């Protein structure tokens, strides 16, 4: 194969750009969609759990039991929605999802507590959402422990005490938005970039212009790269715009090097655009190409990138599959640069893997492309 000729490459890129420009709708979507999605989801989705609907069954009717309930409400995490008389009444409310936590304070609660005996307190939590339930229980325990310690301090001093002093790094307030926004940049860009290129080769096949393209002196690699170039520029603009929005609109800190972000985004986009190209070359029809691109990117980007579900706890086979999800690498990059402020010494592995991914994507696209033409 002849080495890449810059002029021919430029010509192909220009042709693709002209085609793209003639299609204002897809242009608007390519530029506007990522930004619009980021704004929408940056506002809408959060994991911060507050206003947890709580029901209290207070069988003790004592000052102590009222103090405890007061401690729950003062924490700001809970809001009291019901005070049934019997514990049995909690069932219906949990079934309908009216409450997420039910506290049952038994008779003799205050007496036990003041006598230095262990005073039982029952917490019934809606466990269907295990994640939320775990967090609710962690909050409840912290509140109970704190209240309990206050009372104990007036009585017997424990013999030995170990306290854990927790400190959170990188995201001190544990704001879920700081975690979601950089993650979304990776997820959205993976899906959009693959979609954009998945149409390009298939379109030529459908319109019958592929023979014309094949008849030009441009090599297959030049055609693939040339077609990719305009989308690469669009993708980079998108990443920059999304990063600015994250910082300016959502107040997510950006602690790393912007230049490194730009370079690594370049590698990431090459990989994903190459993946789209490959799909396009295999599918040959726009319909199938878009469907394949959607299936190949949508759920994997959300579920297998580490955006939501930790890769560490997945079974080995699945962890292997996550290596072919480019958002997996880019997610480490965006979170690392936004929140941790780490440099190339930490991220070089991600960079290398993304370069490898891009190379394989190009290679496969060119290969499939050649086979089909022959």
């Amino acid at each position, binding site marked *: 194969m002849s080495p890449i000729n810059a002029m021919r490459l430029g010509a192909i890129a220009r042709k693709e750009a002209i085609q793209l420009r003639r299609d204002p709708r897809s242009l608007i979507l390519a530029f506007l969609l990522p930004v619009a999605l980021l704004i929408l989801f940056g506002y809408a989705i959060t*994991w911060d759990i507050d206003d947890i609907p709580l029901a209290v069954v207070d069988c003790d009717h004592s000052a102590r039991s009222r103090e405890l309930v007061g401690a729950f409400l003062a924490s700001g995490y809970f809001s009291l929605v019901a005070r049934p008389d019997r514990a049995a009444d909690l069932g219906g409310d949990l079934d309908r999802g009216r409450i997420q936590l039910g506290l049952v304070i038994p008779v003799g609660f205050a007496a036990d507590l003041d006598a230095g005996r262990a005073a039982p307190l029952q917490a019934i939590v809606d466990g269907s959402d295990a994640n939320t339930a775990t967090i609710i229980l962690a909050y409840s325990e912290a509140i109970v422990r704190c209240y309990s310690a206050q009372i104990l301090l007036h009585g017997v001093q424990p013999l030995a005490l170990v306290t854990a002093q927790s400190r959170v790094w990188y995201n001190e307030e544990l704001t879920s938005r700081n975690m979601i926004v950089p993650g979304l940049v990776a997820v959205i860009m993976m899906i959009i970039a693959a979609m954009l290129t998945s149409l390009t080769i298939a379109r030529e096949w459908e319109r019958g212009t592929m023979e014309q393209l094949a008849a030009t002196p441009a090599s297959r690699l030049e055609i693939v790269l040339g077609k990719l170039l305009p989308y690469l520029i669009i993708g980079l603009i998108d990443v920059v715009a999304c990063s600015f929005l994250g910082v300016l609109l959502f107040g997510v800190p950006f602690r790393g090097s912007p230049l490194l972000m730009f370079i690594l985004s370049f590698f990431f986009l090459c990989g994903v655009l190459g993946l789209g190209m490959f799909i396009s070359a295999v599918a040959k029809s726009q319909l199938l190409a878009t469907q394949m691109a959607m299936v190949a990117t949508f759920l994997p980007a959300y579920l297998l990138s580490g955006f939501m579900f930790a890769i560490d706890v997945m079974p080995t086979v699945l962890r292997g599959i996550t290596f072919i999800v480019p958002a997996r690498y880019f997610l480490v990059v965006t979170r690392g640069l936004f929140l941790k402020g780490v440099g190339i010494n930490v991220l070089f592995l991600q960079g290398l893997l993304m370069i490898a991914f891009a190379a394989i994507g190009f290679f496969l696209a060119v290969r499939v492309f050649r086979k089909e033409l022959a």
Partner: protein
Amino acid sequence: MNPRARYGRIFEMVRKEFLQIRRDPRLWRVIVFAPMVQLIVFGYAVSTDVRNTKTFVVDHDRTQASRELIETLTASGYFRVTGRSDRPADLVRALDHADAVVGLEIPAGFARDLTRAGGAQVQVLLDGTNSNVATVARGYAERIVQDYAARIARQGTMGGIDLRERPWFNPDLASRNYNVPAVVGVIIMLVCLLLTSLAVVREREIGTLEQLMVSPLSPGELIAGKTIPFGIFGLFDFVAVITVAVLWFKIPFAGNAALMLLASVPFLLSGLGIGLLISTVSSTQQEAFMVTFLIFMPTILLSGFMFPVSSMPSAFQWLTLLNPLRHYLEIVRGVFLKGAGAGALWLQFLALTLIGAFVLTVASRRFRKTIA
């Protein structure tokens, strides 16, 4: 109009669609193969359980007591020691490289301080990048350290409040039981949209829409003819995917299967209706696809699948009411985990039926306009 002739025409149209689908083996893969593979792959992925959290230990004390504390921490199953060092700088490095999510630093003199009045202190550092994991891991770490303190104190009952936790519906708090049923809903939505959003546009692009227009079919019949085959495939997918969830992933199915199937019909109709509506408002397949995509993203994120609806700002909570997936997920999770019956879920049923009827009506009206 003669109703029997009408059913005959719809039947012929359905037959024609089936023939077309059968001739396209790749479409088969989208319908039959992809949902199953997706559920198996993603079923394993969707776990938010915090266990085996990578922990880096810096033990300056090196005493029996400090080793016991570390042992207690790892014995819980929530933490796994992936690195040890004497230098705190290594801990920083491990957190930066994401080699550890939790750092435990035990100061020199820890064992000695245990017997003193002031008590001992250990430092727990957490990578807050994933706020969710950090919150849960912090809770576990604090609880374990406290239990350890209680054991050392050997006071028998320490007094104080003994919080007894009882999670309902999902006693082990396994996140998979909550997430796999939701993946079922998401996959079926994806299949519905992928199948129908391009259905009408495609005929227009290929030029076969004109042929359909000169046929005696009314727009309503056309829509029915387009929807029914995909509806049947959707139901087939639904049964297959639920079977995989129950048999493969052993997700407890507490509720009534018939109720679930019944709820799936209006959900499928909503999904197919949205797809058809997209198809009728778009002039090219590419455009239809972009709109599908534009709709699918919010449908997933604003459904409660990953992010609880109750945590969203109230304007968005209202918006989610228009989302069929949101209602369907409530039904699926309710039936699977809570064994909820029609009494608890009728509101969601009603919402799904209304959404389904609305989008199908609008789709067939739009369709009439395009034909005229």
